């Protein structure tokens, strides 16, 4: 990780390990504390960040930001995996939930 100053820096993330969706979800969650930019760079994403003045993070934590970010990112990766694995059954649950509410009185009249 490059530390440009007490409040900013950048680091790379391997595209084969982390999806863009997961990275974007993680960036969203840090929006109260950091300005974060993402750039596509061949096999990696370049993540550039700058501490916001109203951030709850201290400037001495900036050097640890990649670790903090990746820790949250791994949860986003897990959420993405759970969502994918359970997508079909989730649809089935919702369909079953509301199927009894569908007005069947028009069946055969279309």
């Amino acid at each position, binding site marked *: 990780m490059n530390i440009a100053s007490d409040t900013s820096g950048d680091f790379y993330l391997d595209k084969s390990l982390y999806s863009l969706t997961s990275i974007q979800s993680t960036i969203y969650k840090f929006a109260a504390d950091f300005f974060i930019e993402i750039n596509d760079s061949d096999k990696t994403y370049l993540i550039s960040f700058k501490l916001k003045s109203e951030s709850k993070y201290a400037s001495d934590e900036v050097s640890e930001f990649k670790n903090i970010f990746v820790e949250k990112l791994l949860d*986003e990766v897990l*959420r993405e995996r*759970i969502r994918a694995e*359970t997508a079909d059954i989730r649809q089935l649950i*919702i369909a079953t*939930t*509301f199927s009894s509410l569908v007005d069947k009185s028009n069946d055969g009249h279309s």
Partner: protein
Amino acid sequence: MMVIANTKLFSSQEAFASNDSYKLLPFNFHRLNNSKVFISNIAGENTVISEKDFKNFCDMHLESSSETFKTLKSKHFLYESDSSLPVELLALKFRTKMKPLSEFTGLHIFVNTLRCDYTCSYCQVSRQTEDKDLFDMTEEQALAALKLVFQSPNQNIKIEFQGGEPLLNFDIIKYVVIEGERLNQTHQKNLQFVIATNLSFVDEAIIDFCSSHDIYLSTSIDGPADIHNKNRPRPGKNGHELTKKSIIKIQEQLGNDRVSALLTTTAGALTRVEDIIDEYLDLGFMNIFLRPLSPYGFAIKTKSFSKYKASEWFEFYEKGLDYIIKLNKNGVHIREQYASLIVRKLLSPFPTKYVDLQSPAGAGIGAVVYNYDGKIYASDEARMLKEMGDDSFCLGTVFDDYNDIFTSDNLINALDVSEAHSVPMCRDCGFLEHCGADPVYHVATQKDLVGHKAVSGFCAKNMSIFELIVGKLNEDNEESMILKNWARY
């Protein structure tokens, strides 16, 4: 070389193999600060497990003989076969959770006047002190609003009078109550009336009327006299004394349960939570709602809202809740209302009627406001926003058609876009099924129906409180038992 007899240094290879006997059901999770993870499913069922169990569960390594496995199976976080039973049970529970939507609007707020004798700096509705004709609801408007009330499919109807100070237009209250009871002879609903009042103008005639028509009274107490009178100035500077006298009179003549009080927390009160709770006890209230300021009306104009941060209010809340629990341990059974709501949401399938913690939002479909000028707003906060010049939650007027009002674009769009299951950050949140969408709050603070949740005060407040309550509930101690008892309310 040291030999450790009969000690297994490594688990067998089988222990690292996937457990193919189960599959995951949809769930969200939230990591707590104590190496534990809160998980919840679509029906709101939830549990707290260790990080180790959580990792094993997600990696399909959870031992089927373990207690955690049994808990996760019984609460529908995993299933073992191709049986359709888990789907049917989850669907049934999800439908039960969603049932209040079919009941539609239960709370109908009549703003029968905007006039008020108080000049509170945090007033959310921008009260008026002059011109009766401009700021009072008329009989014609009230009757039209009543006809809309009885078109609601909800069998349980609560009509709440708010202001300004509603008792300054008591004639309209009498008219609505008497006419409402007459209309209800046909509709046969469970009809209840509440007056939200500062109690300045309560006299024998008003108490008699409330007694005859089973009307409840809700007032404001901000704490001991010094805090209350500073927050809520009125001519004579005797607001606390007047309110206290009226509370005692109502309790003596109508009963303790017929009057309740609401607290609004200002910056000056942040260090006084114990004094405030003691004041409530002194007045005979066994229930207190530790509420922060809302971002509307004079609270914004006078900068009261920005005088403290969400984190400062949370410290106040946490200290207050601890004090209330300590009182309970000593046999004083006072409750904190917001904690009660959350405990009930976490531990039971039963809905609460609190419109701020609902998704789709309770605006319009949980509560609706008939304003003094005949306009209809999607919530109490929405008419507060209107007084700040933003009319975006106006649904029409009391003279419009019921279906046009409740299918208006202003309402449907707000409910649709703010629905938490499709909102960034909310959709992944472990507390999704217990929290709510509050489009009016986010319009007021971020000029956006959804709002950026990472900077949302609504999210920060609720996330902190959920973590606090879940943490306390999952301890095996007296504190946890006290909180669990509150689920009954």
